């Protein structure tokens, strides 16, 4: 019973993918979209069912689908593990996935390749489920690569634009660098434990025999994999470019689900990271720096989706900060709330872009509050949530991260807090530029301004509600999530007693957020400041506007030498090698031409040679010995 339900959960999106690939065009846009959505809704229903079951019994469900690999003493099954962590992820992947599919029906309706879009989205959900439910690292890796593939396909969905194709390739290649690290980590763990199963590895590790150096290298490699997928320094540059994809894709893949895969993986492997404190320190520092750098770049972006992209990188940085401090449950909490409000923000920005017929530059927006009241209200709620205003979801999760940081390291706490203030500033800058004051676009656009249809607004409303109340799952005091996650964490997380220090930290965080908002208010509402044209930006802000020239830096440091090297191979080495092989061929040909002269065609001669040969053999056998 459970077996077939698990298969249903896993395979319905895949069936949806197959349907949309082979029959989607014939079936028409309505059916293609409806079935694509239905497939994910079925998975969501199954996730809810298993979640209820787990909540009641408390026992994780482990299913072995088939034996997969057996080499020497390494044994890997194709197995599924539905425990607290994977079910949490399943719930919001399929839940938010359903909403975004629903949204896409309306958003992508004018696109001629809508069936293809839904096929890719379904495939993505399938791989994401594989990633989450895998019982060992290798099954997870299948999903890991699969979501990367879907991300590539969807970023380059509008493939007629070469820039979009380049962005897709960039995302794929950046991820590949991280994947290499992940793969090496898997190899090291396989050689250490002779198994890749999470439960067995955890048992083996708790049994002792610590080989800390190798553990650290393995953990570091896994973390490199996570930096690729979850867009951390130094591999984060693909995520802002990934905004080339359609907005629902940005919401689903590049904000809510796929980019949190790195956090999922590290939380899964928490028992390993717990014994490698030096790697944890690296994670925390990388997370904090990423949060800070990305937030500072976000301050100066003018593309509405780019702002959200950098904000995603920054928020992911905060989650890694929490992971590095060993507060896995806090990171998971922030992943969930972030999924709610960031998906809502992206979908809201999609609604705005939809209304403006593809305009993404905030300098050409403004005053949309009256024309699009629902989009405005939902985005405002989510913005309050991400800025960390009481009592929205983001306040609770971000506050927990900062609290953990304060306990461990004041420096990290300061970095996180500054990033939060900047977040509040640029998010409200986005809101003010988009929805307040007067419209700055063309007259024609102004006439066509309209609220989006209900298929777009309903997902927004639901997500906004979740962004408001999402914090309830882990309020200080009740801590439902912490208790729920306890079985999968190797080290018990100590509860926060709500003392004066905690209230003070909450107060500081809240004050910081309000300072950020006030700063944005005075600049963009009171002074009515509109960001300058690209050419007028000078000084340090120009450096930030150009993202610290990181792309250019990578270009000159890595790409140029690589290009030069491949050019050398092409123009010098390849002809040289080719000539060697060609020369060998010529020599063999010449030898053959000479040897051919022996074949005179005279049978008498052949027979003579034959007899001589036999005689030689016989005399060797009898006389030679």
């Amino acid at each position: 019973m459970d077996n077939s339900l698990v298969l249903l959960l896993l395979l319905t999106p895949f069936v949806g993918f197959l349907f949309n690939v082979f029959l989607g065009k014939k079936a028409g846009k309505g059916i293609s979209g409806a079935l694509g959505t239905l497939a994910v809704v079925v998975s969501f229903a199954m996730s809810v069912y298993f979640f209820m079951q787990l909540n009641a019994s408390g026992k994780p469900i482990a299913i072995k689908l088939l034996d997969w690999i057996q080499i020497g003493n390494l044994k890997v099954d194709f197995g599924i593990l539905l425990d607290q962590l994977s079910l949490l992820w399943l719930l919001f992947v399929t839940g938010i996935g359903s909403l975004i599919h629903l949204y896409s029906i309306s958003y992508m309706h004018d696109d001629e390749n809508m069936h293809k879009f839904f096929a890719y989205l379904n495939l993505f959900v399938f791989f994401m489920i594989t990633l989450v439910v895998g019982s060992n690292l290798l099954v997870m890796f299948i999903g890991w690569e699969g979501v990367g593939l879907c991300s590539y396909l969807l970023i380059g969905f509008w493939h007629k634009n070469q820039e979009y194709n380049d962005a897709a390739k960039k995302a794929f290649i950046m991820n590949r660098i991280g994947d290499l690290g992940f793969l090496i980590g898997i190899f090291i763990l396989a050689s250490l434990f002779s198994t890749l199963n999470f439960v067995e590895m955890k048992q083996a590790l708790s049994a002792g025999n610590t080989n800390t150096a190798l553990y650290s290298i393995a953990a570091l490699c896994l973390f490199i994999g996570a930096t690729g997928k979850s867009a951390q320094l130094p591999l984060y540059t693909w995520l802002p470019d990934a905004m080339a994809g359609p907005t629902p894709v940005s919401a689903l893949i590049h904000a809510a689900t796929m980019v949190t895969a790195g956090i999922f993986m590290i939380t899964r492997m928490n028992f390993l990271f717990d014994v490698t404190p030096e790697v944890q320190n690296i994670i925390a520092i990388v997370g904090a720096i990423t949060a800070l750098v990305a937030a500072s770049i976000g301050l100066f972006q003018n593309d509405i989706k780019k702002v959200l992209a950098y904000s995603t990188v920054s928020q992911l940085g905060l989650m890694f900060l929490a992971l590095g401090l060993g507060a896995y449950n806090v990171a998971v909490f922030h992943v969930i709330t972030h999924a709610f409000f960031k998906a809502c923000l992206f979908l809201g920005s999609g609604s705005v872009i939809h209304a403006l017929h593809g305009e993404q530059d905030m300098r050409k927006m403004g005053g949309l509050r009256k024309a699009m009241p629902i989009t405005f209200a939902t985005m405002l709620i989510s913005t309050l949530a991400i800025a960390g205003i009481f009592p929205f979801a983001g306040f609770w999760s971000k506050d927990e991260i900062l609290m953990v940081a304060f306990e461990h390291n004041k420096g990290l706490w300061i970095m996180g807090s500054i990033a939060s203030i900047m977040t509040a500033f640029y998010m409200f800058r986005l809101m003010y530029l988009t929805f307040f004051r007067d419209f700055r676009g063309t007259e024609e656009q102004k006439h066509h301004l309209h609220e989006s249809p209900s298929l777009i607004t309903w997902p927004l409303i639901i997500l906004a509600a979740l962004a408001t109340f999402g914090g309830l799952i882990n309020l200080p005091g009740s801590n439902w999530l912490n208790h729920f996650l306890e079985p999968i964490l190797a080290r018990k997380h100590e509860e926060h007693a709500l003392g004066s220090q905690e209230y003070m930290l909450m107060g500081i965080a809240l004050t910081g957020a309000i300072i950020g908002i006030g700063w944005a208010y005075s600049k963009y509402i009171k002074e009515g400041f509109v960001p300058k044209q690209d050419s007028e930006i000078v000084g340090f802000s120009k450096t930030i506007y150009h993202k610290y020239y990181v792309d250019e830096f990578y270009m000159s440091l890595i790409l140029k030498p690589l290009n030069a090297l491949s050019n050398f191979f092409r123009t010098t080495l390849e002809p040289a090698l080719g000539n060697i092989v060609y020369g060998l061929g010529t020599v063999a040909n010449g030898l053959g031409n000479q040897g051919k002269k022996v074949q005179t065609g005279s049978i008498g001669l052949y027979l003579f040679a034959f007899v001589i040969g036999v005689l030689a053999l016989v005399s060797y056998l009898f006389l030679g010995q």
Partner: protein
Amino acid sequence: MDNILNQIGIENYIFLSILLFCIGVFGVLYRRNAIIVFMSIEIMLNAVNLLFVAFSTYHQDPKGQVFVFFSMTVAAAEVAVGLAILVSVFRNIGSVDISNLKNLKG
């Protein structure tokens, strides 16, 4: 009845066999007519058969004689195929002189 080998002696069989074999070899090497070449090959084959039978009797071991039966059967089949080939060669080029068969030239 006394063993036939006692009357003649094994070495005479060997000499005869070698003689026959050499006749075969020289026939193969010197004659140009394909049918003669073919016959020479048969002589070689039968020289070996003779040796087989002789040694079989000498060692009181019937295995050699069984072998000869087999090799004779195979030789019969081989003759049928070989003659068929020669007939077909003759039909095509009007001669069975092996000096004329130059198609194997590389």
